[in-house]
């Protein structure tokens, strides 16, 4: 198992490199010149040319890419073009916000989504089932930014219960996390429901009933773990979408996270910040995928034996 994990971590290197190359090329190909943006409209042509030379922007694309990677592996992600701060520090200061937001987003969607899906399945065709499916439909159909605005309207403006913007306390994270959780919660509810329905019709569930196990025991001990595998896959896949969603949600709730940083940096062609932010998000997504794959092995012993053989 450890060997498998080590192998997977090594495999993340080419993935990250590939992503960095793609992002670097996109920034290169997109119109606009960072230097003129930095110096403003009134700058002389000579000043612009001097700064370009100084920043090494006149070098060949591949030379610049190689130089960037060379520095990046030593932990030096350069200096922001715009406000002259170390990119590493900038990312580090915003990292906790995004991580807290996505963590709670995932936690809420899992903690509500799975139980609701399970109840929905074991009470199939009842009012509870219909109600949970209907809410799931509503939740998936609502765009995150819109839901966020609605929540702000209700809880901040009308009721004055929760702060609309900022990250000072845990209360600040409540609405953004719920907004982030909404769409993926809906997917988890539906996925859990359908796999549970499949599992509770299996022969081994009948065997468990024939042993005299209670309905509750059958669900948590026999059915749930068997039903969880596809659900975990969905959670892992959703995580990527949720990171993307975090960018929107950080903007709606004016939170200083990686997302807002990235949006601002793209506008000003602040290449070092964009690169570092994207790489950071990519790394987070890769690590999540690895965690999901390792979880598989713990959920299903049949998969574990496959890992061991490798």
């Amino acid at each position, binding site marked *: 198992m450890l060997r498998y994990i080590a192998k997977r971590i090594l495999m993340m290197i080419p993935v990250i490199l590939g992503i960095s190359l793609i992002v670097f090329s996109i920034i290169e190909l997109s119109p606009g010149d960072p230097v003129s943006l930095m110096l403003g409209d009134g700058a002389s042509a000579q000043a612009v040319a001097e700064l370009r030379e100084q920043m090494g922007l006149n070098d060949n694309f591949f030379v610049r890419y190689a130089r960037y990677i060379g520095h990046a592996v030593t932990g030096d992600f350069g200096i922001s073009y715009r406000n002259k701060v170390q990119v590493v520090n900038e990312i580090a200061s915003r990292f906790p916000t995004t991580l807290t937001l996505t963590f709670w987003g995932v936690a809420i969607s899992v903690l509500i989504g799975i139980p609701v899906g399970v109840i929905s399945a074991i009470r199939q065709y009842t009012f509870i089932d219909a109600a949970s499916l209907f809410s799931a439909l509503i939740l998936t159909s609502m765009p995150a930014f819109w839901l966020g605005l609605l929540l702000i309207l209700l809880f901040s403006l009308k009721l004055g219960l929760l702060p609309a913007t900022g990250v000072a306390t845990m209360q600040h994270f409540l609405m953004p996390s719920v907004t982030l959780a909404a769409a993926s919660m809906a997917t988890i509810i539906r996925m859990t429901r359908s796999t549970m329905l499949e599992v509770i019709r*299996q022969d*081994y569930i*009948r*065997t*468990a*009933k*024939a042993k*005299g196990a209670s309905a509750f025991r059958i669900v948590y001990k026999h059915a749930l773990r*068997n039903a969880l595998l596809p659900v975990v896959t969905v959670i892992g896949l959703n995580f990527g979408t949720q990171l993307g969603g975090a960018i929107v949600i950080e903007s709606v709730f004016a939170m200083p996270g990686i997302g807002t940083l990235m949006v601002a940096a793209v506008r000003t062609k602040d290449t070092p910040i964009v690169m570092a932010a994207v790489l950071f998000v990519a790394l987070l997504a890769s690590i999540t995928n690895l965690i999901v794959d390792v979880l598989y092995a713990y959920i299903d012993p*049949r998969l574990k034996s496959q890992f061991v053989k490798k």
Partner: protein
Amino acid sequence: MTEKLLEIKDLSVIYKTDEETVYAVNDLNLTLNKGETLGLVGETGAGKTTTALSIMRLLPDRTGRITRGCITLGDLDITRASEADMRLIRGNGISMVFQDPMTSLNPILTVGEQIAEVLQLHRLDMSPEQKEKRVDEILEMVGLPADRKHEYPHQFSGGMKQRVVIAIALACEPQLILADEPTTALDVTIQAQILKLMKELKQRLNTAMLFITHDLGVVAQICDRVAIMYAGEIIEIGTTDNIFEGKKHHPYTVGLFGSIPDMTKATRRLNPIEGLMPDPTAPLGGCKFHPRCPQCMEICKTAKPLNIIDGTHAIGCHLFAGGAGHDARINLESTGGAE
């Protein structure tokens, strides 16, 4: 041997869906004595499994329903017992061995955990160590090495899995085992091993068994008594001798034996019973077998036959009413299927 353990009286079970109602079991009567093995034989759809599931009260929630009759185990009326009482009975007083060992074990729990679960549910007085010991003991009893209890079902072969299923059924030493075609999914050599095992264990623990099968050969090996089931009814019941050696039989039984290919004769074609079982959604008047019966009489189409009882042997057929002998027409010997 003659102490009554299980009694089923006038049991009727239906499966009701939005589109149709299936009359799966119709007025079934059956008794099973302590330590006895009763074979329940019939073709697919005869209601054998439904009968067993009714005894366990495990009919599908939404569709299956017992409409009439009662089932008693000792003093307990199963048809009226609470769900909590039934949970205490299942796995403890009555346990079930299912048809397909490949799917009846939970893939994510070790076989040891699955056997221990029955003990956890019903043997509350046992310490964890005692339970572990009992798991080892029961695995050895069904012929599996105890140290394999930490393995998962996918690491076992089909026959071994069925041994595990049997181990689960036997863990609490129930009074009654319902074996629902326990050997059908296994190949013949494994089938023989499992039958031998079940026979031995049954004798050792003096457990009664309802053995559901469509294989008459298996019945001859393991059963004390045999009930032949057709379209939700028992049409003939008797000791294994009565059924295999007796002279009088229900025409359906004759057909069943007749359809077993003879090893000593060079037959080119099999000899099936013509026709199909009646549509279970539209109950038939009179004898359920009359459309397929080679000896059908006028009365068979209108009146339900009574059980004609002769000692340990009962046949539900108009042919034998009024003591008319039909031995000449139904000669079991000529079908040669008694091996």
